[in-house]
């Protein structure tokens, strides 16, 4: 718990400093071509940018602890409200991508491992190599060209909101989720394959087979369970990467999620939003990692944390 808090504090400091050393003064960007010395000074004062950086940081952290992440310069709305509203797109998108990734990668990895050095294995490896090589935004464009432009099955992008119905929501997130999960799917399939291959060579697997345990039982009860530790580790890290990947794919599919919010906030130098989103995403990733650590203990009762 202390490590968790320390990590978050470090992240908050890092993001605060990085955002401030970026070239480009938010006051200039707000005022644009009409700025003069007086108006720049006034806007800087309004934004609190005239205070010493330590004072600014202390203000921000104490407010953030009570859930107040400040106000967006660009939208004039509370940052927390903006994050929550965008989360209704990004969270389902990430979860759908994760579900698709896990549902496709683990069975395929298992299949490849059990068909080691046979055609099925080679095919899986080629597929996953492609998945690693093709960047998500390009895969996204190809998917749009095929499923939206050519076949007309789904819209090319945009999100009409959950108010239009659950299925319509899922439908508009489907292509971006596939594009988003593609790379992670490939990595997870390869990890599953190699982890399982390693376990399948272990003595106790031979013993289980010698005892006459059915192949299905050997595979799922003995081998896969023991291979899960590296798989869960990779999957946990990937969940964080999926969140990060949404920044690009939300632009390709023009989804109003956290990623696009971040991108727009960076170019508009909307510092409270950039800081707020990065802190929020970092907290999510730290939490996921903590959950993965707890999951280790369940998967392997020998692992205990002091």
């Amino acid at each position, binding site marked *: 718990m202390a490590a968790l808090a320390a990590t978050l504090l470090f992240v908050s400091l890092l993001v605060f400093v990085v955002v401030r050393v970026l*070239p*480009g*003064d938010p006051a*200039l*960007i*707000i*005022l*644009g*071509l*009409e*700025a*003069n*010395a007086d*108006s*720049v000074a006034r806007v800087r004062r309004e934004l609190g940018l005239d205070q010493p950086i330590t004072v600014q940081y202390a203000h921000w952290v104490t407010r953030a602890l009570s859930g107040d992440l400040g106000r967006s310069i*660009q*939208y*004039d*709305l509370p940052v927390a409200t*903006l994050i929550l*509203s*965008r989360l209704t797109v990004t969270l389902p998108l990430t979860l759908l991508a994760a*579900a*698709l990734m896990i*549902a496709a990668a683990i*069975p395929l990895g298992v299949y490849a491992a059990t068909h080691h050095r046979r055609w099925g294995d080679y095919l899986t490896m080629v597929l996953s190599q492609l998945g690693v090589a093709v960047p998500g935004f390009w895969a996204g*464009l190809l998917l*749009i*060209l095929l499923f*939206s*432009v050519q076949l*007309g*099955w*789904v*819209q*090319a*992008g*945009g*999100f*009409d*909101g959950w108010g239009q*119905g659950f*299925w*319509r929501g*899922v*439908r508009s997130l*489907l292509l971006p989720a596939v594009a988003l999960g593609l790379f992670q799917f490939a990595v997870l399939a390869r990890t599953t394959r190699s982890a399982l291959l390693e376990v399948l060579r272990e003595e106790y697997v031979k013993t289980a087979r010698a005892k006459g345990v059915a192949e299905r039982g050997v595979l799922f009860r003995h081998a896969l369970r023991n291979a899960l530790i590296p798989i869960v580790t990779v999957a946990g890290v990937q969940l964080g990467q999926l969140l990060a990947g949404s920044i690009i794919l939300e*632009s*390709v*599919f*023009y*989804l*109003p*999620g956290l990623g*696009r*919010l971040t991108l*727009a906030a960076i*170019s*508009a*130098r909307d510092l409270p939003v950039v800081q707020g989103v990065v802190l929020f995403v970092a907290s999510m990733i730290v939490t996921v990692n903590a959950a993965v650590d707890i999951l280790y203990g369940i998967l392997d009762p020998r692992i205990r944390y002091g």
Partner: protein
Amino acid sequence: MMRLLLAVLIAAFAAAPAVTLAQAPNGLVIQVATEPPGLDLTSNPSSAIAAVVFDNVQEGLIKIDRHGKMVPWLAERWYTSDSKNYTFFLRKGVRFHNGRELKASDVKFALDRAVNPETKHPYRVQYDVIQDVIVKDDYTVTVALKRVDATFLYTVARQGSVIYPREAVDTLKSQPMGTGPFTVAEWVRGDRIVLTKNKDYWVKGLPKLDRVVYRFIPDPNAALAALKAGDIDVSAFGIGPESVDELKKDARFQVIVGDTTNDVTLSMNNSKKPYSDKRVRLAITHAINKEEVLKGAMFGYGKVLGSNVDPTNPYYVDVSKRVGYDPVKAKKLLADAGYPNGFEAVFKVAPQYYYTVRSAEVVSSQLAKVGIRASIQQIEWGQWLSQVFCLAPCTNPDYDMSIIGHAEAFDIGNFANPKYYFRWDSPEFQKLFRASESAPDDKTRRELYVKMQDMLADEAPAVWLYMHPRLVVTKKGVTGIWKDLPLPVLDLSEVAWQK
């Protein structure tokens, strides 16, 4: 797990027909590249705000129509005897979206607020000329000026002079209210803005659409895909010139190519050697083949320019041949100026505007042929504003050359401002400009504008490369979209689906 997921996916495809916002009856979905930074025309000069609000939600006393002509709008006529006192007669029965009738006191409120330095009006300098706004009666208002100002009526027609009810001044940023053909129904931040028809609009028969959805799609490829997939009906600012030929051949679409006030300008730092030498500036101008730049950067769309005044301006004269492409002459001028072997230079450009980098690439290869070795440095927009455009606290611009589009109409005054980032200080030109601002009649003003254009071409404080074209792609059947843009606006009042 696999089966469950498959079932979910199949259900998602089957249960929801591919209906998008585009198919709303008598509605229109428009793609724009940039989400407006708020919706207040009186606080920010952004053209993204104008695209949504100006002439659609809020209107002014005078309107610039699609041909660039000033037409009476909320004022049904105006009158001046001395070019210093303008009396506007308001149209009766015009109502704001809240149902209240527009009165002369609203005009006074809006103009007083523009003059007031506290309100951060983006074009405050242009309102400085206003001495007083006097309400004569409910429908008559007189604006007294400190001096004759030839651009005053244009100031009244521009986006910063829209009239809004004073009781709605606090919500201008998120829920602007006005007298326009549409009202703002919804703004889903980061995704879309929805306008709905103002049923009590004072112009009978308008607007023709019931509903307009603006979708923010910054990526040109995504915009093209959305257009082809039928998700959007119009791409207003987003399709690049490279896609135009392909879309022209596609029977599903119509491509509108028109003129704009956006002059893509190669700026030079006139306060710095060697650009302070007129011979060097002329050499650079002679070294550039603008037709080739237009082909290379814009696939031939747009028009070559010779000065800061573009074809949408009523005083435009073609001076593009005055200092034409002539590399031999360029080399001679460089030698005369003491640079027989040319010199090194850096182009600072902001890739946020795609045409800047493309144009700089073509231009630098042309300059290389006369010995000017120009490298390209891409910098982020915020840096461009502080280094090149030299916004405060910068006091001296830090650049050799740059390229950017200047979209303001009637912005020749920038060259009469020695503090502007070109840093061109010509008392003779400044005198001409001042005379044009206080010209007693249109004929005199036109003559002065012609002189200024000739002088700009001959002195070459910058190189005016080309007018950025207006490129709009719509589905077949969409009518009423403006072909040319005499000012940054996206007027949708007359847009309709062909029956």
